[in-house]
């Protein structure tokens, strides 16, 4: 099961890299969203994919006997998804405000904060 997921992660990373190399701010943010998913999947794979028993400790025991599925990656991925969502939401609003105020979504045209060009 690992191999297809690893290939998917590779594909997503490639797509995201291509999107993020764009000068268009919206594409950059789409790339961020895709790359976020690739990274979340790698956390998931890093926890090892198994089809074992659920990680529930029986009432009369201290630990689980035998193999059990790793619950930690899901907790980590959940946290990462929430954080990624928050960041993306802010970034999208920022892109919208930038479009309204600066009149462009092309990053190479955003030069308000840069020093004025030397006259040739």
């Amino acid at each position: 099961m690992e191999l297809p997921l690893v290939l998917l992660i590779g594909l997503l990373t490639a797509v995201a890299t291509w999107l993020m190399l764009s000068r268009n701010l919206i594409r950059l943010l789409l790339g961020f969203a895709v790359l976020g998913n690739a990274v979340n999947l790698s956390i998931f794979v890093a926890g090892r994919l198994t089809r074992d028993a659920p990680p529930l400790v029986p009432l009369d025991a201290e630990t689980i006997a035998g193999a059990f599925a790793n619950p930690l990656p899901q907790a980590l991925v959940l946290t990462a998804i929430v954080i990624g969502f928050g960041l993306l939401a802010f970034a999208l609003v920022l892109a919208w405000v930038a479009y309204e105020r600066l009149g462009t979504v092309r990053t190479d045209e955003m030069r308000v904060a840069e020093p004025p060009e030397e006259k040739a």
Partner: protein
Amino acid sequence: MMAGWLAAFVLVVPILSAGATTLAQGAPRLQGWLSLLGSYVLLVVSVALLLVVLRDGMVVLQSGNWAAPFGITFAVDSLGAVMTVIAAITGAACLTFGLGEIGEAERRAWFHPLSHVLLLGVCGAFLTGDLFNLYVWFEVMLIASFGLMTVGGTKAQIDGAVKYVALNLVATLMFLLAVALIYGLTGTLNFADIARSVPTVSNVGLLTAAATLLMAAFGMKAAVFPLFFWLPAAYHTPLVSVSAVFAGLLTKVGVYALIRAFTLLFTHDPGWTHTLLLWIAGLTMVTGVLGAAAQTEMRRILSWHIISQIGYMVMGLALATPLGLIGSVFYLVHHIIVKANLFLIAGVAARLTGSMELKRIGGLYRSAPWLGVLFFIPAFSLAGFPPLSGFWAKLVLVRAALEIGSWWIAAAALVTGLLTIYSMTKIWAEAFWKPHPAGEAAARPLGEAPTVMLLPISALAAGTVVIGLFAQPFYVVAERAALELLDPASYIAAVLGGAK
């Protein structure tokens, strides 16, 4: 156990301040006072924590009483405690300054609550003993800094924020990917547990790759060569009190994370990681100072100098000798105070003369000679003049480099110091010495700046002088922090207990 509670209070206080200032959003005066109160209480609590750590050694807090490595661990060693105190000092100084700077519009854009959330993220990052938890604190800090950067909403701020946000998003994902790889290799995220497992990892190549990825992620936050371009594009745009907090604290959280990662976690392949860090340090110093030479806007000059100063801190880490790390810790403390102060002084200078752009201002020495004195202290401390704090920091680092025969890095450090004087002299000559282009009356006297702005500047300048004149106790604390960093075994034992 009491000490553990103290560490928790360092996080509880900013949470409460953020909550209280949010509720007081409709009552401007009350909100200002609550905000100040919160920042000074944080200062008191963090100083108490530092004293406890210096007296009794590391403070370890296992949240929810889940023993490490299963619960989320907070582990405070001397470095973490020192950094927390410095963060609290910067926060208190900049929030005091902010009272004089921010108007109703900025206040309505949630300046106060966001500032406290930022302090929460910074303090959390300094205290945590868990890699994933560090990621979460970084994000808390990051989202608050996004909000603060755009308080005011001018075109330049939006423009700067786009670049700042974009590059930080990338760094965030690199950090998370490194976390995934490290978790996959070691099966744990607890610092101490990772440090214990690293020598047993069989796939050393992948481990080094993960470490390098982490270095890139932290390096981008710390603004080292060649990942620093977001910093000079953004740091001159926000409010002065915001940019002073950013300049003092945010990149230093990245440096702190680098120090933590490459003293505690990844010392398995110093031939690659620490050599790389040394090259990065040298190039960061030189490019930063050369970048500053080309600028004519006060805060842009100072922003480029942040980069060059980061190089010094990374240099001490890369040397990985006791003296080198002492230098790094000392430099961190000195730099945060000096750099935040320079940004605040630039803010006052702009208020008195009408601009940050050096070509359009002047005459400050005639109209406000005391501001000249206040500028002189941090500026020449930055350049490393004795007997100010920067001199001792540079002296220790250069000695550390000479001790192990790294001649070129010592040379780079000294040349960078020399070029720093050039930039500081430029600000001095343009803003203070030459007459104001709009006539003598255009530069106003110091008395016209609000007292709440001058108080933090004077206090930070006094701090710089005190560290310079009475360097010994500060050196002793830095030495202790450095020796703890070089002894990961006791960190591991303190967190995980003697067993196993």
